[in-house]
């Protein structure tokens, strides 16, 4: 019964999305009386999609094995948290989660958005309905999560402990929230293209969604990178793998969009550019989804490739993005560029970095898709870190330098001599760091420059606060400071990892001690251990940092039998100044064990930095929302005073 309710709610929500689209289009074309229909159906659609998702959760909690999806992905003996995450840890459920969040967002816009011109709002909701219809069609036609089995299963399939990882449970929804936020920004952009009204109010309406999406994407990438780092067992934290790139590209676009929308909100400039980025940011999330799920870039061995799903997503992608780009090509001419500014101004710096971010995005996109393009001509090439790192750096390094200066500049027009002192200070810090690093023993050009820029940027990030009463600094400014500082911290971690990491591959007998960096590492013993569907050997390793306290590590080498796989469970000893990374391998014929050890100074700063960036975004979001609320309350009070009815 629950499954049927869920499915019925989903069909109804789909019907409302159609109503929302049709009503929205008609209302924009002049039938204003339909406005309330559009709003109501957006809200109702949110409620119904939410109901449908709750039904799915219910089925997973109750482990209703007559439902195909539950039987395939859950198990009655799973802990509750993994039963819940099982609901979205598969293709069908994740699509339902996506469309649910999107419908809830649409409902929220209909409910609370008051700044936007009525017509633009209606066009936005219509666009939102259009995007949602595609997803509903996808789910209802080819990925129905509520499908029943002819005969209920006796027990569920999904007790794969590999998937019972708290990171895996929350990583995908984090990314979906990010994608949905960008889809809302996309709808706003389309709405504004339809009505040709791109105003600071429009930017203020769009900004919280972009900020929210950006926070989620930042968290998702940070968590994903850390997960790959400890799970892969070779100490790498970013591989420029197509799947990683697929998550990075929306973030790059969202970062650019976030900054250009701020310019639009504050200065009424960069109108078409913001619209374009709104379209691009969402297309990158759709593109990522397409690349990952169609399997055209990843291995057939890793996935059951489903060309049907791939084709469906490609059709949606071309409808949404192709449509929006066509609209852009036809309409952008009639949107004027907005206010002008000088190169040495806050806008100038922001535009520079927007262009740099877009170029980086272009390079990641190119490097990711290029092997696919040559394959069409039967030529196979590989594009990896030796390409992405230097080519990306050509654009990243100037961007980081401008990022240090930009927040110090005034809007519209400024003079570099005004901020001479802080500029010289930051430059001195960078050059001094560079000198020290080179004297220490010049590692690699990129790592050295990274360390120098990180040092300067860390200080520059706080300079916008100089001479201000810290209690009066708006939360949004704090957000910017924290996020920029986070970038410096992450950059420092990356450069330090690349410059100072030490690796030791050792074959050791039990009782032997080996060194890596400042660590003494002793293999105390090796014992067999067993899990539900694996056996492992576990090394008992005792490590001392610089003769200090003993740290015990238990890395495992696991053998799964269903399906047969070998994985290495690394173990980490974390200190404030870095991590010791230990992996145990196989036993050699002479009885010695393979130990793989890395000392990675300050590697943790990469993820601390990522979290700081997300925190900065969150502070900014809270600050903006609080300001909006205050403004709204003031507005309402004024309206009440003047005795006018609220429209």
């Amino acid at each position, binding site marked *: 019964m629950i499954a049927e309710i869920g499915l019925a709610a989903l069909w109804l929500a789909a019907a409302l999305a159609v109503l929302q689209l049709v009503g929205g289009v008609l209302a924009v074309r002049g039938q204003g009386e339909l406005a309330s229909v559009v709003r109501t159906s957006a809200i109702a659609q949110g409620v119904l999609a939410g109901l449908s998702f709750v039904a799915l959760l219910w089925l997973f909690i109750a482990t209703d094995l007559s439902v195909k999806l539950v039987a395939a992905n859950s198990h009655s003996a799973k802990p509750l948290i993994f039963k819940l995450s099982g609901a979205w840890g598969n293709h069908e459920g994740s699509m339902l989660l996506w469309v649910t969040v999107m419908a809830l967002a649409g409902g929220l816009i209909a409910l609370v958005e008051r700044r936007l011109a009525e017509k633009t709002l209606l066009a936005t909701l219509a666009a939102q309905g259009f995007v949602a219809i595609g997803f509903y069609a996808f789910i209802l036609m080819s990925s129905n999560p509520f499908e029943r089995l002819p005969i209920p299963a006796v027990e569920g399939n999904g007790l794969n402990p590999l998937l019972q990882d708290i990171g895996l449970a929350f990583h995908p929804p984090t990314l979906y929230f990010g994608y949905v936020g960008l889809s809302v920004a996309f709808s706003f952009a389309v709405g504004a293209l339809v009505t040709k009204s791109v105003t600071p109010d429009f930017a203020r309406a769009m900004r919280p969604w972009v900020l929210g999406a950006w926070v989620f994407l930042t968290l998702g990438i940070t968590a994903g990178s850390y997960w790959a780092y400890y799970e892969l067992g070779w100490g790498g934290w970013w591989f420029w793998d197509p799947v990683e790139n697929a998550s990075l590209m929306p973030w790059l676009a969202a970062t650019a969009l976030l900054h250009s929308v701020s310019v639009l909100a504050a200065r009424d400039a960069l109108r*078409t550019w913001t619209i*374009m980025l709104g*379209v*691009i940011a969402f*297309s990158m999330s759709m*593109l990522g989804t*397409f690349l990952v799920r*169609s*399997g*055209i870039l990843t*291995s*057939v*061995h890793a996935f059951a*490739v489903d*060309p049907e799903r*791939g*084709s469906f997503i*490609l059709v949606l*992608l*071309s409808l949404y*993005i*192709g449509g929006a*780009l*066509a609209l*852009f*090509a*036809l309409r*952008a*001419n009639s949107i004027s560029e907005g206010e002008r500014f000088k190169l040495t101004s806050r806008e100038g710096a922001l535009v520079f970095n927007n262009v740099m971010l877009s170029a980086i995005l272009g390079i990641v996109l190119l490097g990711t*898709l290029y092997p*696919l*393009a040559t*394959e*069409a001509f039967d030529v*196979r090439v590989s594009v990896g870190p030796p390409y992405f790192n230097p080519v990306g750096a050509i654009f990243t390094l100037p961007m980081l330098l401008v990022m240090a200066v930009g927040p110090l500049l005034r809007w519209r027009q400024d003079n570099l001599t005004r901020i001479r002192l802080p500029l010289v200070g930051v430059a001195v810090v960078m050059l001094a760091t560079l000198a020290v690093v080179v004297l220490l023993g010049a590692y690699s050009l990129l790592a050295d420059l990274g360390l120098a820029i990180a040092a300067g940027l860390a200080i520059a990030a706080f300079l916008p606060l100089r001479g201000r009463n810290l209690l009066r600094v708006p939360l949004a400014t704090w957000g910017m400071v924290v996020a920029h500082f986070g970038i410096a911290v992450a950059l420092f971690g990356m450069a330090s990892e690349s410059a100072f990491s030490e690796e030791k591959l050792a074959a050791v007998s039990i009782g032997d001690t080996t060194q890596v960096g400042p660590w003494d590492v002793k293999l105390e013993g090796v014992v067999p251990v067993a899990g539900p569907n694996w056996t492992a050997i576990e090394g008992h390793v005792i490590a001392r940092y610089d003769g200090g306290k003993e740290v015990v590590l238990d890395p495992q080498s696991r053998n799964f039998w269903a399906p047969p796989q070998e994985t290495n469970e690394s173990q980490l000893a974390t200190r404030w100044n870095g991590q010791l990374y230990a992996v145990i391998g196989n036993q050699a014929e002479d009885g010695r064990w393979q130990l793989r050890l890395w000392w990675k100074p300050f590697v943790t700063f990469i993820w601390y930095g990522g979290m700081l960036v997300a925190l900065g975004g969150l502070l900014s979001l809270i600050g903006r929302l609080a300001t909006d609320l205050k403004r709204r309350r003031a507005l309402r009070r004024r309206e009440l005073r003047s005795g006018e009815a609220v429209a």
Partner: protein
Amino acid sequence: MSRWRLFVPLGIFSLFVGLAAYQLSQPKDEFVESAMVGEQLPQFDLRPAFASLPGAATADFTDGNPKLLNIWASWCIPCISEAPQLERLQASGVEIVGIAIRDRPEDVARFLASYGNPYVRIGADDLSEVQLEIGSSGVPETFVIDGEGKITYQHIGDIRPGDVPVLLDKLREAGE
């Protein structure tokens, strides 16, 4: 901004959609082809992988008769399924030289006892050195070598019944 420039993003996007649609319609193959096809067989001289057969060396391939060079291993499961096809090839008079990758003599002997022995010689390649030399990226793979020791054809993966006539054709071509 001139009008045509606004269509550039749409144009680039259409290119991508075309490419993606084309690739979706293509069967995805994961084969890495050897760039050594058409080249002379590299120099090697491998010890026997199996007590009752000689090892394999480059010199064995220059007697004027085309041969098959089969890269395999006793631990490789698809190798089991291609064993009958190798026997058929042998029955048609083809000389098959085997190279066993990372294998032990006793395992090789057990495999040959169970699934038949189509080989005239088997070399042991313990460090995949010859495999890397000839650009092979997995087991099993089969190369056609002409009478002068030139690589003329590469078959990737296990030999299916339908591949036998193809290989016989390629051997005949190599003999001409």
